[in-house]
């Protein structure tokens, strides 16, 4: 049986008088409800009139009048009805419910229980009247609409609401309020100021209490962030705002309403950010790196603590945009920075340069400045970057350069002055010998001549070393590696033939190296002649020359099958001056020293692998001429 039919049956059974008792009042309809059998509930035709169904034939009416009621309101309706039935003294039945009008818009009906006792047909039957709120005044409808609206907003915004009654010492909250902490409302009971404080984090308790008291005593606003304990044990960050909504006639707060909002995520992010910020600041400080920023939009300049320390400005110094450049030494340094900044402001760029500043206290310092420009809609809005005090580093570089120059000068002077003396000795020896050839028979004289010759040679070597670095700057050019090797081999062809040396060349035709021509030949020559010189006595020398490209370098390798060198014993001295490791009549101990200097002066390096009686492998690295 359809509810409507049953309803009709019910009406017929129970007499039309009652049903129509409300018909006379224009603005009210009647309703009835069976607590045991809720579907046996009904409304009179006035209901359909209120909802705009009065033009519809009865067969077209919705099967159940309750289906037109807002589901939540229906729930409230039932709850209140139950409560009322159980404790009629405590709960009066008076409720406004929302319905959907035939044309779609909402209408509100005010349901009240009849004050007149209904005929005792059924002990579980409740009877009452309903009226259309609109008919009673637009304000009420608007209010109900507004309440509804706020209800929606609160739900959508995830706010936990509360209302404190200071007199009754209770707080009434919504579901979300409790849910935020993992509880149901029932679980929180009894909820009041004290039980609330029990869940607040001990560290926040003091501040929360103070703010609370202050606000109650009319100071400040009620807005705080604190932690509350979740049912599962973790802490939830809460943002709480509230306002007193009712005062007693004596001016004492009577009621306060407000909300809780879960800000755990924001707070966690904030704390993490603060942690990283602190970490960055600390590492910056440790490395003496400062942060600076120019904000062209707001015309602001920011210098971090370290930047201020580098510039030695007083604690209360407020920099202006002009200060960005003013501290750089007038002239070259300031110009360099001005240019870099101008360029960065024209297009998004990064600059990294070193300049000298004169600090607020007048000290000179070397700084490294890194700047990055940021653009918005084609306009440079900020320029930010780092500043580092590199005075120590710069001083070290300066000292080293000076030291190096002094060494070169020293070497020049030594070689020059010594040369004039040895030159004189040589000349005198020659003259004396010319005058009296018999002098050469004299052992002393003979030995002095040897010493003089040796000394001349030593000084020549010394000069060569001194010259290497000076030469390189001007004389580097690109050379074909294979051609250079072939040329050297051609020059020492007779030596190679005499010693029956076999040379295997595996060098690609197109490799170009960046080198000083004379050095390149000297290096190749030295490494080949060394291999021949230090071959094993019982077999002929086989030299394998290979080359290849390794990024910006070209490697050139000389592998031989000679005597080898005990690297454990001599490794550290191998490239030293006047180091000889074999009892060889021609060993002079200059070759490796000179070629190492030559290679390094040209920006390359030399490596050696060797084992005694197996052979040596010298690998040289040159700058790639095609790179």
């Amino acid at each position, binding site marked *: 049986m359809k509810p409507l039919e049953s309803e009709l049956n019910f009406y017929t059974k129970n007499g039309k008088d009652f049903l129509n008792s409300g018909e006379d009042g224009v603005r009210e309809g009647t309703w009835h409800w069976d607590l045991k059998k809720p579907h046996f509930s009904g409304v009179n035709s006035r209901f359909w009139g209120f909802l705009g169904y009065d033009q519809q034939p009865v067969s077209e009416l919705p099967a159940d009048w309750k289906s037109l009621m807002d589901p939540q309101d229906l729930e409230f309706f039932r709850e209140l009805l139950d409560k009322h039935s159980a404790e009629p003294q405590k709960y009066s039945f008076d409720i406004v419910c929302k319905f959907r009008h035939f044309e779609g818009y909402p209408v509100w009906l005010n349901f009240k229980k009849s004050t007149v006792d209904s005929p005792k047909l059924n002990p579980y039957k409740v009877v009452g009247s309903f009226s259309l709120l609109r008919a009673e005044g637009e304000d009420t409808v608007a209010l109900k609409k507004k309440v509804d609206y706020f209800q929606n907003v609160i739900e959508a915004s995830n706010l936990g609401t509360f209302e404190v009654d200071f007199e009754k010492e209770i707080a009434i909250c919504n579901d979300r309020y409790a849910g935020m902490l993992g509880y149901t409302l029932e679980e929180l009971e009894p909820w009041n100021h004290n039980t609330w404080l029990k869940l607040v984090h001990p560290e926040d308790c003091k501040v929360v209490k103070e703010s609370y008291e202050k606000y109650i005593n009319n100071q400040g606003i009620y807005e705080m962030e604190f932690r509350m304990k979740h049912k599962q044990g973790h802490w939830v960050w809460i943002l709480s705002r509230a306002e007193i909504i009712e005062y007693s006639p004596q001016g004492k707060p009577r009621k306060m309403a407000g909300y809780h909002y879960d800000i755990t995520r924001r707070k966690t992010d904030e704390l993490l950010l603060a942690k990283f910020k602190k970490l960055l600041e600390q590492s910056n400080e440790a490395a003496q790196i400062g942060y600076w920023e120019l904000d062209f939009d707001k015309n602001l300049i920011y210098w971090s603590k370290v930047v201020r320390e580098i510039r030695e400005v007083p604690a209360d110094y407020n920099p202006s945009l002009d200060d960005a450049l003013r501290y750089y030494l007038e002239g070259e340094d300031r110009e360099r920075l001005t240019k870099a900044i101008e360029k960065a402001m024209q297009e998004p760029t990064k600059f990294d340069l070193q300049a000298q500043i004169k600090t607020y206290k007048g000290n000179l310092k070397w700084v490294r400045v890194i700047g990055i420009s940021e653009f918005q809609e084609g306009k440079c809005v900020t320029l930010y970057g780092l500043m580092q005090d590199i005075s120590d580093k710069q001083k070290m570089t300066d000292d080293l350069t000076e030291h190096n120059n002094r060494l070169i000068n020293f070497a020049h002077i030594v070689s020059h002055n010594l040369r*004039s003396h*040895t*030159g*004189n000795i040589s000349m*005198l020896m020659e*003259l004396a010998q010319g005058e009296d050839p018999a002098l050469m028979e004299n052992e002393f004289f003979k030995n002095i001549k040897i010493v003089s010759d040796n000394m001349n040679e030593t000084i020549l070597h010394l000069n060569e070393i001194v*010259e290497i670095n000076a030469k390189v700057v001007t004389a580097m050019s690109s050379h074909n590696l294979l051609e250079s090797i072939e040329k050297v081999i051609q020059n020492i062809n007779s030596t190679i033939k005499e010693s029956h040396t076999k040379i295997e060349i595996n060098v690609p035709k197109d490799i170009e190296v960046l080198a000083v021509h004379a050095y390149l030949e000297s290096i190749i020559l030295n490494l080949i002649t060394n291999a021949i010189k230090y071959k094993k006595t019982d077999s002929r020398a086989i030299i394998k020359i290979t080359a290849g490209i390794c990024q910006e370098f070209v490697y050139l390798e000389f592998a031989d099958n000679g005597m080898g060198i005990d690297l454990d014993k001599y490794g550290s001295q191998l490239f030293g001056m006047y180091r000889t490791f074999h009892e060889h009549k021609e060993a002079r101990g200059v070759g490796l020293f000179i070629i190492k200097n030559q290679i390094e002066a040209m920006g390359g390096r030399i490596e050696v692998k060797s084992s005694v009686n197996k052979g040596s492998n010298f690998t040289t690295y040159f700058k790639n001429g095609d790179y």
Partner: protein
Amino acid sequence: MEITKTACIIDDDPIFVFGTKILLKNNGFGTDIMVCKNGKEALDLFSDILSSVKELPELILLDLNMPVMDGWEFLEEFDKISNQKKSCIYVLSSSIDKRDMERAMAYPSVRNFITKPLSSIKLRELILEMETPGHQ
């Protein structure tokens, strides 16, 4: 057939002067070899010679490192007063620095750069070059 040639040594090193004098004499130079201890002395001497329309020595051996006026300063000044068409100065120095050589060769009056020590062989080559007409 040897014609005695004139020469001037500008050097502050007495041993070098002593040896060079012998070498020059052994190679056909006269006994009256002029010696100046620095550039200033030489410049004064040559100014006198030039003003009295006498001939400058055929060979001038110039050291670079000297007190009072060094070889470089001398060359600067000498090029101002000299009207010689032929360069007759040989720079003799212990320096083997290429930059010194190039710098010296840049003076019109400098014929060549010789690295000390001077020897009979070097001197003979020098004389040969000197007698070759025209510039290098």
